[in-house]
């Protein structure tokens, strides 16, 4: 009998330690990633109970959320940030965990660092106290965000109690048009299936669009699974995956790599794999997309107008009205032409080298509009170095963008980079929630890095295809 399990269920079955009294499964966690914000209380829980870390070599720590992207001299100007930095240094030292701190050239945003070091591999279970852990699913792993009590459990036992989710296959077939990027695919899926459409599901992304994507593009889509309510999303491993991992420092080397590659490919869902649900989209329907509201499902194609309240299902209308009110936008208003104050390229969604290349391609030879403050924040020190080797930093600076050090920066504004007052930010990040970018009344428009660069130059939301001739995906 053939094995009709999809990748998710194969990987899940490999990691079941035992069934628990609650009916949940105790699941082994292959890789644990931690950062400074959601870990200090977890280490304290271990101390309070007199526990050790069971597999310290299976946890990797970095710092990203609170670190400044300009002046990184210690102690930080923010006492609270300094206290958190000191805490993770002390905790990692005491419990024997490797920490990529600011002095380590491998430091960066946790979901950028894991893949680029080869820590993230297919067939693993990967967790981190951060909802965008879904990023790592791009490799064909089960990767999901957890809370701090769960961080403590993983530190102490390398396991978590979990209930098996359902699996929905999302196929996107055809070819993306010029100027349409992985970010647009993610925003399109969330718009179609809703911000809670994925609750209870793991998403398997498939179809010719995903087959053709680079690993960095797959990471962008998987990253935003959680914005559609799915705790994890994945792409089946293929030759693109193998080629990406080969030679990375934490990856198996030599003959071991060949054994690993064979194993990884064997986990992929087969043609007769079974799913709880399947949805199919056509790439031709996806346009450069911009959010207009206060959740990532509230978006339109750049040449569309914002819908009338009555055009939404009755159960969503109160939320649509709240969003229009907060954003100071009207029904039927075109999103194109909306003036922006700030532009931000960065984050675990779109802070990789390919994102910076696309933004630089648009920026080259132009100037940031006088009224716009524009930041380019590489997702890791290695991304920053690569960009500088390619001269991208010069392109950005000559165009009037600020070139910053690696960190989460203005995605969530736990550091000095934030909006003020009612500013509107064109942002390559993942959330447009009220107050997300640091000002309680600040406003966020999510879009691809190329669209952010175009908006920075025009000073307003524009269709990137009218400014430059982007190569596209």
């Amino acid at each position: 009998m053939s094995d009709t399990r999809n990748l998710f269920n194969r990987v899940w079955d490999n990691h079941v330690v035992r069934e628990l009294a609650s009916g949940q499964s105790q699941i082994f966690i292959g890789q644990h990633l931690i950062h400074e914000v959601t870990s200090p209380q977890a280490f304290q829980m271990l101390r309070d109970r007199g526990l050790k870390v069971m597999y310290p070599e299976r946890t990797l720590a970095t710092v990203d959320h609170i670190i400044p992207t300009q002046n990184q001299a210690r102690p930080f100007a923010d006492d609270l940030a300094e206290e958190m930095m000191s805490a993770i240094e002390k905790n990692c030292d005491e419990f024997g965990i490797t920490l990529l701190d600011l002095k380590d050239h491998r430091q960066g945003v946790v979901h950028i660092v894991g893949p680029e070091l080869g820590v993230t591999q297919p067939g693993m279970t990967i967790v981190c106290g951060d909802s965008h852990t879904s990023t790592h699913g791009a490799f064909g792993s089960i990767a999901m965000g957890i809370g701090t009590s769960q961080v403590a459990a993983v530190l102490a036992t390398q396991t978590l109690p979990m209930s098996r989710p359902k699996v929905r296959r999302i196929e996107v077939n055809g070819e993306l048009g010029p100027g349409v990027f992985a970010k647009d695919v993610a925003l399109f899926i969330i718009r179609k299936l809703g911000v809670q459409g994925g609750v209870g599901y793991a998403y398997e992304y498939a179809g010719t669009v995903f087959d053709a994507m680079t690993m960095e593009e797959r990471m962008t889509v998987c990253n935003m699974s959680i914005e559609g309510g799915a705790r994890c999303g994945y792409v089946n491993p293929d030759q693109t995956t193998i080629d990406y991992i080969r030679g990375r420092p934490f990856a198996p080397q030599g003959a071991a790599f060949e054994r690993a590659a064979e194993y990884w490919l064997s986990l992929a869902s087969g043609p007769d794999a079974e799913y709880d649900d399947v949805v199919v989209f056509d790439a031709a329907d996806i346009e450069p997309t911009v959010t207009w509201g206060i959740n990532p499902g509230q978006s339109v194609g750049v040449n569309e107008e914002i819908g009338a309240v009555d055009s939404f299902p009755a159960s969503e209308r109160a939320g649509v009205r709240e969003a229009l009110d907060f954003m100071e936008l009207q029904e039927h208003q075109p999103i194109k032409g909306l003036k922006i104050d700030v532009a931000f390229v960065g984050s675990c969604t779109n802070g990789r080298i390919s994102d910076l290349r696309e933004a630089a391609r648009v920026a080259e030879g132009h100037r940031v509009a006088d009224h716009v403050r524009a930041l380019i924040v590489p997702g890791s020190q290695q991304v920053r170095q690569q960009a500088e080797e390619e001269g991208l930093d010069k392109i950005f600076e000559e165009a009037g963008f600020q070139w910053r050090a690696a960190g989460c920066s203005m995605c969530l504004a736990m550091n000095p980079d934030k909006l003020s007052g009612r500013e509107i930010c064109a942002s390559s990040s993942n959330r447009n929630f009220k107050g997300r970018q640091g000002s309680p009344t600040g406003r966020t428009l999510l879009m691809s890095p190329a669209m952010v660069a175009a908006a920075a130059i025009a000073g307003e939301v524009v269709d990137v295809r009218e400014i430059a001739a982007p190569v596209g995906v």
Partner: protein
Amino acid sequence: MKKIVQVTGPGIPLLLDDIDTDRIIPARYLRCVTFDGLGDHVFKDDREQHGDHVFDRDHHKDAKILIAGRNFGCGSSREHAPQALLRWGIEAIIAESFAEIFHGNCTALGIPCVHATPQQLKHIAAAVEADPSLHLTVCIETSTVTHGDTKHDCHIHEGTRTALVSGQWDYLGELLEGEPEIRATAGKLPYMTNFA
């Protein structure tokens, strides 16, 4: 282990959909190494922008049971969100649906997440608004919410319900008991030896 079988107390209605954890506790309050004091900042920005927020109303100050809408707790995985609600005084949440990470965080803290229909939620919220001192009773064993003579049959995820009533929601001890099986599972995973 503490068994959680029932929560009784006044309710507080917040029937909005898609309330994200940034709204429950803005990121600037995550610059901390303990969860102490987070209760003071729950819904901070909403409360400052809109006077008369339900969490500021004196007649709800003793509330223990939050009545919410659809997809409550979406977004960031921050456990600071349920920690802030708990420290403000919330011991149970009834909603149409919950974001999964938030739901897991609540269970790990012993906060029952109860699923109810929009009609049930409207009915419960109306009863609480009519009499804020009204005591609601969330019974975990039967997945019901009761006030006065009215009983609503609701839903609690089976694994969660069993974990709460058995005391296994505080799962660290149970997980640790599986150490031999943990090591056996690890031994079968090829990446644990880097495919040597």
